[in-house]
């Protein structure tokens, strides 16, 4: 931690002449938090790497096995399927919230009576305790006694098995994920909209541009960086989604909704296969990092804000 503080302090451009010594004065403020971050965040990363090249017995014995845990992964069909399911779940759980979130942001950017209250209600799903809402959705999905099938049949549509059948379970989980996380996309894009200059919009309006044209040729290009940030955040969160899937389907029926995270949980805490789980964690983390890097590079200038 202090090493990275040092390099960062040295290269900090705007501290100018005050330079290295100036930055160093502020170390004591960072050190206590740095130690804790090391203990609960950096140390587990290192320990996971160490574990991934060992075999861990329930008795506590460990054997060095080299890359054996990693080599098991490409031959583990259950793991490969979990990767496919994770990607399927992620693509849908990014596309829907981002599309809806942008639309919602455009709505909430306009002034209307009770806007504050409407916005607060809109963000309640993302603040609510995931386990609690997952349980309520599970009750709503129940094929016989659930309210959703009643609503479907009462408007003449066929009932669905929702999370209780293997071919509908992932779209069902995406529905809940969309319900819960569209607000986060909305907030990020709304922040972007609030920072836009008003002149181009005035000019377009005077020139007689339609609302749709203004949205397509002005709003979207101007808030594009925010949309990208929201997409990256959404992608990361969807890749590591756990609570909703765990409570609603538990990875089932069978293993039909078992994502990497769910399989990882099973491997570590149901089969107690710690070394293999650690290797899986490392690969999972690399997948997340790669996906977020690919998305980040599509953004022109990188800015930590």
């Amino acid at each position, binding site marked *: 931690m202090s090493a990275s503080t040092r390099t960062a302090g040295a290269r900090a451009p705007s501290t100018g002449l005050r330079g290295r010594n100036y930055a160093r004065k502020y170390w004591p403020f960072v050190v206590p938090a740095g130690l804790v971050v090391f203990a*609960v*965040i950096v140390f587990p990363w290192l320990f996971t790497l160490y574990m991934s090249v060992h075999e861990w017995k329930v008795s506590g014995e460990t054997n060095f096995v080299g890359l054996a845990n990693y080599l098991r992964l490409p031959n583990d069909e259950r793991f490969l399927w979990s990767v496919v399911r994770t990607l399927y779940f992620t693509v849908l759980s990014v596309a829907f919230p981002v599309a809806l979130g942008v*639309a919602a942001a455009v709505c909430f950017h306009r002034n*209307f009576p009770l806007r504050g209250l409407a916005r*607060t209600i809109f963000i309640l799903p993302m603040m609510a*305790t995931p*386990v609690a809402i997952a*349980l309520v*959705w599970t009750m709503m999905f129940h094929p016989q006694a659930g309210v959703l099938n009643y609503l479907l049949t009462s408007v003449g549509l066929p009932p669905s098995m929702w999370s209780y059948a293997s071919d509908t379970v992932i779209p069902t989980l995406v529905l809940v994920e969309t319900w819960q996380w569209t607000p986060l996309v909305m907030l990020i894009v709304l922040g972007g909209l609030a920072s836009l200059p008003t002149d181009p919009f005035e000019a377009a309006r005077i020139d007689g541009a339609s609302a749709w044209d203004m949205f397509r040729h002005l709003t979207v290009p101007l808030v594009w960086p925010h949309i990208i940030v929201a997409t990256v*955040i959404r992608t990361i969160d969807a890749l590591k989604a756990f609570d909703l899937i765990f409570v609603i389907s538990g990875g089932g029926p069978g293993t039909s909704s078992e994502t990497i995270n769910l399989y990882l949980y099973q491997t570590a805490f149901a089969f107690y296969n710690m070394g293999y789980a650690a290797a899986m964690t490392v690969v999972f983390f690399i997948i997340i990092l790669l996906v977020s890097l690919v998305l980040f590079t599509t953004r022109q200038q990188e800015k930590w804000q």
Partner: protein
Amino acid sequence: MKGHQVRRLFGRIGFFLAVFALVSPAILVFLWMLSLSLKNEVDNMSFVPVFIPNPPTLNNFVEVFEKNDFLNYTYNSIIVSFGATGLALLLGVPAGFGIAKAKAHRVAALIMIARVTPGLSYLIPLFLLFQWIGLTGSLAPLVITHLVITVPIVVWVMIGFFEGLPSELEEAALVDGASIWQAFYHIAMPLARPGIVVAMILAFIFSWNNFIFGVVLAGRSTRTLPVAVYNVISFEQVSWGPLAAAALLVTAPVLLLTLLMQKEIVAGLTAGGVKGG
């Protein structure tokens, strides 16, 4: 002219319908949760749903408290969330100040990586570690692992706030002979109080909501509320009324906090897209 007005009227109606369509899924799910928690089992299981409880009953809530150790779980959740939030503020507010002043952007980036990492990857090593040093069975492992969520949130929000503060006052104090510590404690920190409130609320909510750490690390008596609702109540009682009542009780504090502090929460969330776990 008249056609123009009609079009505007339709535009308006369309806009309000859109807002209604956006808000209603959120409202309906929470109202259904409330409805389930206030009805008896016969009404909850009937195929033609009873939307408005008639007459409403509080029996489900009574049952939650009578049949389970709900008060104990509430106590656990309070200790863990307040503990982890308090410690995170103690550590994270000075750290945010230090990072903002030293412009240590790489440290900030490191904290962002913590947000990217899946919660389970902390749990596997920490689980073994806690077993090894014999901490399992107390609330300490939960408070410690919740720091994984709360410290990055606090540091992240505070960096933003301290960077936004004018530095003139502080520099004047330093010129007048105050130490950095005094400048931080007497000048920067009072100015950043709104930021501290934002950081505190967000850290508390995401710690309260956390499920994955508790589900792995908590023992029978150290379960936090989300874990208890999942483990105990959903398995030992299949009936929906008490389950909905328990779910409502768990999430009610968070919903109330969101309604009361919506400005602070929106400010904090837009700043960094923070989310724990």
